[in-house]
């Protein structure tokens, strides 16, 4: 609860700064503020509580994920400095929207009532619609915003319908009550329908096949920083929320539902990876890679009672790698009008450090050891095998192999090609974010218990 309030306060503060003409201070203050919020959030780790008639429930799950989101936001805000250099007059808006986005995200993992869930997801989505379309003179950005908006609202409609069904079945929006009532034998069919519809809506948000079509287009069209936000923060949020929804409402995940998850998970991995192979645009490639990672993360739903820790771990690993990768992309494509892979040619020679960071990030996503991505996959595999879904794991393994194909395409471009231009300037924040994100990734890769034990 405190987290939420603090974040909102920070957002408002941002807007105020603009009015007070403290534009220069916005980013530092925000970062410091967010660090404070992070501390505040972590302090609640051992104090699970629920606030305001169960509207907000703070537990370990919410604290952990909120902290992850805050960390990601810190990175994203830090990257904003460089990215919005030429948009100073809108800086406060951008930052404020990011912070509100964060509070939507926090609401989504700490809701105790479906109203909060719905509002949270809408705050998040609307912020993203805006961010996607924020490059108003660029048709691609417009298109991305429009596509995202149309499909997102469509999905919101589905989610709303689902919530309505749940309400029809239970007569309440309170998660705890729903959870309690779902134990009773006589349930109207509305409840499972509602759950399924909400799940489908969330599938859209995490971009799982066949609800993924928006992702590559939107990722490609949006400004790079927004893409970074979507592919790291938004995806992780949506996944965590889906997990929380299904686990908190004690939904009956029967055999059929598990089959659906299995199929969607495998389809997401496969389609995402295969489609990514032929992409020339890096953002688009990472969008498809995100689709496949969504498929991986969906595997956690198959062992929902025990997999919170592994989801957190996977999400952390994936998003940290994503942040590191995107900071390099931001740097490389700063003054380019596209994010084609050709921009990366020879980066290994012109800028070995960032090339190494990007390589590390991609290796992490591909699941190569010592990077966190490896452990994430390992834990996931072990949980899924334990749950008895060896088939999914085999599919996941085959997909990991395919994924190496396109991750290495980028690495090859960096090391195997001659550079076609030189870049000057060493934006400190980008370097800092890239390195810190990757170092964090490696650290949790070396000491996975740090994260895994949080939600064990």
């Amino acid at each position: 609860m405190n987290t939420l309030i603090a974040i909102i306060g920070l957002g408002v503060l941002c807007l105020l700064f603009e009015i007070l003409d403290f534009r220069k201070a916005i980013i530092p203050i925000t970062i410091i503020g967010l660090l404070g919020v992070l501390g505040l959030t972590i302090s609640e780790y051992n104090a699970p509580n629920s606030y305001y008639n169960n509207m907000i429930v703070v537990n370990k799950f919410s604290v952990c994920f909120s902290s992850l989101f805050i960390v990601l936001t810190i990175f994203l805000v830090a990257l904003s400095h460089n990215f919005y250099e030429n948009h100073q007059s809108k800086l406060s808006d951008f930052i404020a929207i990011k912070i509100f986005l964060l509070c939507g995200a926090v609401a989504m993992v700490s809701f105790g009532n479906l109203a909060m869930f719905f509002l949270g997801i809408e705050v998040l989505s609307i912020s993203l619609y805006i961010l996607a379309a924020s490059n108003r003179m660029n048709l691609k950005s417009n298109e991305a915003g429009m596509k995202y908006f149309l499909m997102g609202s469509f999905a919101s409609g589905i989610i709303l319908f689902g919530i309505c069904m749940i309400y029809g079945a239970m007569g309440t929006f309170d998660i705890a009550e729903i959870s309690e009532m779902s134990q009773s034998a006589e349930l109207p069919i509305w409840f499972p329908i509602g759950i399924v519809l909400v799940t489908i809506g969330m599938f859209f948000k995490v971009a799982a096949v066949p609800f993924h079509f928006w992702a590559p287009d939107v990722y490609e069209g949006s400004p790079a920083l927004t893409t970074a936000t979507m592919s790291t923060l938004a995806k992780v949020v949506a996944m965590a929320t889906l997990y929380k929804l299904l686990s908190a409402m004690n939904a009956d995940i029967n055999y059929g539902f598990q089959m659906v998850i299995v199929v969607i998970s495998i389809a997401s991995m496969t389609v995402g990876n295969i489609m990514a192979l032929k992409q020339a645009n890096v953002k688009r490639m990472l969008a498809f890679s995100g689709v496949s990672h969504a498929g991986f993360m969906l595997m956690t739903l198959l062992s929902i009672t025990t997999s919170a820790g592994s989801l957190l771990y996977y999400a952390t690993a994936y998003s940290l790698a994503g942040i590191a990768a995107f900071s390099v992309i931001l740097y490389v494509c700063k003054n380019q009008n596209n994010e084609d892979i050709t921009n990366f040619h020879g980066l290994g020679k012109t800028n070995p450090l960032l090339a190494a960071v990007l390589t590390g990030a991609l290796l992490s996503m591909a699941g190569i050891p010592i990077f966190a991505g490896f452990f994430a996959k390992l834990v996931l595999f072990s949980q899924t095998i334990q749950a008895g879904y060896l088939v999914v794991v085999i599919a996941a393994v085959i997909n990991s192999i395919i994924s190496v194909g396109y991750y290495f395409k980028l690495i090859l471009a960096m090391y195997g090609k001659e550079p076609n231009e030189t870049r000057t300037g060493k934006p400190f924040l980008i370097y800092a974010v890239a390195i810190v994100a990757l170092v964090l990734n490696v650290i949790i890769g070396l000491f996975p218990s740090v994260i895994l034990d949080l939600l064990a």
Partner: protein
Amino acid sequence: MNVSLLLILLLVGAIVTYLAGDKLASKVALFFGLASLGCTIVLLNHYNLGENISFITRWITQPNVSFALKADGLSLAMVLLTTALTPIIIFSSFGNEYKNSKAFYALILFMSFAMTGTFLASDGLLYYIFWELALIPIYFIALIWGNGDAEDRKKAVVKFFIYTLAGSLFMLVAFVYLYLKAGSFLIEDLYKLNLSSSEQLWIFLAFFLAYAIKIPLIPFHTWQANVYQKAPTVGTMLLSGIMLKMGLYSVIRWQLPLAPLAAKEYLPVLIGIGIAGVIYGSIVALRQKDLKKLLAYSSLAHVGLISAGTYTLTLDGLRGSVLQMIAHGFVVVGLFFVAEIIFRRYETRTIAEMGGIRAQTPKFTSLFLLLVLASVALPTTFNFVGEFTVLYSLSQINVWFAVLGGTTIILGAYYMLKMFQYTMLGETNKRIFADVTANEGITLVLIVAVLFFFGLYPKPIIDLITPSLEEILTQINRIN
């Protein structure tokens, strides 16, 4: 004093080398390579005195993973191979100029680190991590410092990486499965498992895929020749000298004890695959135009024989293959170095463009010939000891295996001598072939000396590896 010191040394070496800058990198790397060799020898001494040099500590609680390094004779023998070859390989590269050499030498040491780790790890996951880690440096070494057309090289290297990764991921699944059964990744705990024969079969297959690609056994070898050809010679040496042995070592350490029933059931098939590799590799090698490719196929033939020996599941087979692994490691490094020496002078690897070198440099010729002879397992070379033991073990299973596997001594002689004839003999080449430099000479002499010393007196190594092999064998034979 325990084996973790060795790993730390190599890792620190990699970092220091990178920091040392381009000029000093090679020397620093050599220093650390030698230091690790020294360290290995000291450790070996401690081990022989009966001290415990293993190292184990809890790493991750959930899943239950330990940072466990266990040094028994087998591991130490392989570590010795790694740490002995690393300085030799580094030293062999002194005649070449590499761009960004600090990264190059750091990667070599890092790879050495990862491979040493693979040989030492006694925790499944740790082992897997090292196993994968070893892949990354060689990928970059081959990609960045390789030779030939960049596109072709990329294709070959990526194929290699994806292919090997593909195999090892299935191994990971197998490990996860075993972990879920045993609740720990520690090899001791995994050994205790009682798996049904169908489980063993699947686990065996998963491991087999990983190892068959890494070793490589036919028909999983298609990456090999291309990568050997494209990689810089140092990379090729690392790959063929040590990395292949990772696969073979793993068969002995992990695959056979964990799934002995499957190995026993499919014993003829497995040996057959190995022997098919011998014959196939030898025959393909006959008509190779590229010297490095020829050596790659010869390597294919040799590892085929080694794996056949391993899958006999007899003490002789295991012992012979370990001996042969070490011997082959040295000889193949030497041969690739010879290819490099010629390349330095003639800028070619095509055999047809060589010839008539002997008249110009008798010393080099003699050393080359000795390596060729070691490669064809002439008695008194280390390779003979290994090959003889392996063939002997094959004959214990079935004489025909020995006969077919033994064709290596005919075909091997055929292609190696043919190669020797067309690279070295004949009318004096018009192009001048400068005599070997001191560095080159020392490297070759060292290798040859090792081969002949252990060829005459393999007892130290036999005594080193036999107890641990016996232990593994009891593990293999625990269920019948």
